[in-house]
């Protein structure tokens, strides 16, 4: 055995041992472990920043849950996260790595806004349904690009879908600075405010949460039915778990890629139009504070399972609200949210290891034996 390996073993005297069977307890416990570890990290960060950790903790994690309005905000911010994550999870399970939900969300916002701005009045009570469909189609169209390039030219969907995020943001910038800018808007880069029949109705009086939250919950159920009760969902599951078995069974890889990206893109597009037709009410240069990227974390924390994603999106939404509250009450930077979100995923990935492995300490004798053996 070489010196570097020996050094590594002294520093890290543990050995990973595969469990006879993946632990289903750990599968559910791991997001909780990760969330706890993230909260502990939060405490340390608060301490470093010289804030009383108990107060900070209260402001960050409990205050956003205290009033009806706050709970409405929780559901409001969870909506786009849930929509994007449900679609992404379907792909991740089938080994299709769409990480451009942010771009698909943007295109959904653009497509739906086009309807609202040009035909909003004429469509009357049909405006909202048409906008929703246009939003979903916009997101699908954007996701169709990586799907086409992957199936036709074997181009990696991670890089293509990500590049399209930047292109979508530039396109949005062009529209609100140029042709779609409100001529009476004091030169602000934003569109006209949508007409009333093109704005999503409030769900609960006194909050800002819209009907899109209900749509997202229904889609979570639909997504569960799709992946557990339909053959198409089953094919995607097999493709992710056992690609060779899927190929042997004659399941088409192309069809899975198209399905995963179109569904993911459509859901992200729906999230985009729900944002502009909901809390924003017009088209502006930034329509999302990175919901499409945060949804990647939501998908993993939710165990790629629709109902897990519902819970995870509420947790992630809490992190956004906590960041805002911490900024107002404690003068902490709101960017702390990104730090928490990122570390949550790290902790989750680390904790996930113990689903399939367990840690065993390497005893001195066995180390010696290992040394002789090699």
């Amino acid at each position, binding site marked *: 055995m070489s010196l570097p390996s020996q050094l590594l073993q002294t520093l890290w005297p543990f050995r990973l041992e595969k469990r006879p069977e993946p632990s289903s307890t750990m599968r559910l416990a791991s997001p909780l472990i990760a969330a706890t570890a993230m909260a502990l990290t939060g405490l340390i960060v608060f301490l470093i920043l010289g804030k009383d950790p108990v107060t900070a903790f209260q402001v960050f994690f409990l205050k956003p849950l205290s009033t009806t309005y706050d709970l409405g905000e929780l559901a409001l911010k969870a909506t786009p996260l849930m929509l994007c994550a449900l679609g992404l999870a379907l792909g991740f399970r089938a080994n299709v790595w769409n990480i451009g939900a942010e771009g698909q969300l943007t295109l959904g916002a653009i497509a739906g806004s086009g309807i609202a701005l040009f035909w909003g009045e004429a469509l009357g009570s049909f405006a909202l349904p048409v906008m929703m469909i246009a939003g979903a189609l916009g997101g699908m169209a954007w996701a169709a690009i990586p799907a086409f390039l992957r199936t036709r030219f074997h181009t990696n969907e991670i890089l293509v879908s990500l590049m399209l995020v930047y292109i979508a943001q530039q396109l949005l910038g062009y529209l609100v*600075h140029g042709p779609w800018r409100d001529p009476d808007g004091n030169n602000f880069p934003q569109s006209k405010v949508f007409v009333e029949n093109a704005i999503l109705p409030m769900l609960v009086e006194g909050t800002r949460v819209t009907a899109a939250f209900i749509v997202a919950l229904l889609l979570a159920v639909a997504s569960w039915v799709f992946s557990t009760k339909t053959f198409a969902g089953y094919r995607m599951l097999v493709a992710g778990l056992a690609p060779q078995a899927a190929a042997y069974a004659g399941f088409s890889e192309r069809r899975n890629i198209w399905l995963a990206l179109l569904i993911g893109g459509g859901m992200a597009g729906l999230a985009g139009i729900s944002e502009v037709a909901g809390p924003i009410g017009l088209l502006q240069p930034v329509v999302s504070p990175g919901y499409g990227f945060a949804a990647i974390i939501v998908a993993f924390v939710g165990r790629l399972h629709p109902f897990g994603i519902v819970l995870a999106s509420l947790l992630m939404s809490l992190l956004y609200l906590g960041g805002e509250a911490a900024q107002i009450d404690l003068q902490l930077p709101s960017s702390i949210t990104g730090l928490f979100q990122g570390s949550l995923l790290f902790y989750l990935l680390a904790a996930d290891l113990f689903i399939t492995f367990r840690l065993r300490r390497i005893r001195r004798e066995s180390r010696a034996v290992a040394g002789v053996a090699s």
Partner: protein
Amino acid sequence: MNFEHLIPIFVSTVVAATPLIYAALGELVTERAGVLNLGVEGMMLVGAVAAFAAGIATGSLVLAFLAGMLAATAVSLLFAFLTLSLQTNQVATGLALTLFGVGLSAFIGRGYSGMPIERVPRLDIPGISDLPVIGPLLLNYDALVYLSIALYFALSWFLNHSRAGLRLRATGESPTVAHAIGEPVIVIRYLAVMFGGAMSGIAGAYLSTALTPMWVEGMSAGRGWIALALVVFATWKPLRVMLGAYLFGGVTVMQLYAQGFGVDVPSEFLSMLPYAATIVVLVIICRDPKTILLNQPASLGKSFHPDA
């Protein structure tokens, strides 16, 4: 248009390509060892903010670059620990690293927005840098530009002509065989990931102290991802990384000069060019699946567990 006008375009192309060279060559080494680190964008941002903060605090650009390298290496170690010691999925962990890096850099950099910093100086060798044409064209860059070219030569030699490079490549092609003949696969991979981290750190530091001497949240603007695409485009060969980086540098500066040439296109569409170009070159190179299959390190992205 005469020759004089081409000089500034050439110069800005070289400068714009430099951070891409560092990040892509670093990732190339990581990937040749069989590890796919999608966290380049995050590591660059961490490097950029660390370098900026250190530059402001110490006033020394050397220390700024060291800080950028160290900080990015530190976060790359986090990735290495998770993927190599804990065997987590490399794609998911790399994404986590990028998301974490974006958040961490925004958090650290919150006080630094809008602050000025001294720009990395250009070398000014009396008598030589003033030579007509050749002077401004080739001999008037900052030191990092020349070092990036030196890095290319050093890496080409290392990968293809040194014993250590052979061991690195063996680890990437077949970790099982490398392990069987006694190579410390995990240690080699740790070092490769750390090297990638350090280079991303330099790339980030270059962004915040040389290319645009300031700190802006998310200032890498997808360059980390473009660097990842460059490695694929280069079919894991250093020379083609260089060519690709200069090509992309050219596309990036085109948007600055296009309007000067009377190209009447909204600036947003010009800003899309580097991203669109990335997609186009990926399509060209991936069109024939054999190109990737024959060149990609065989174990790229797969976890390796010595006991398995």
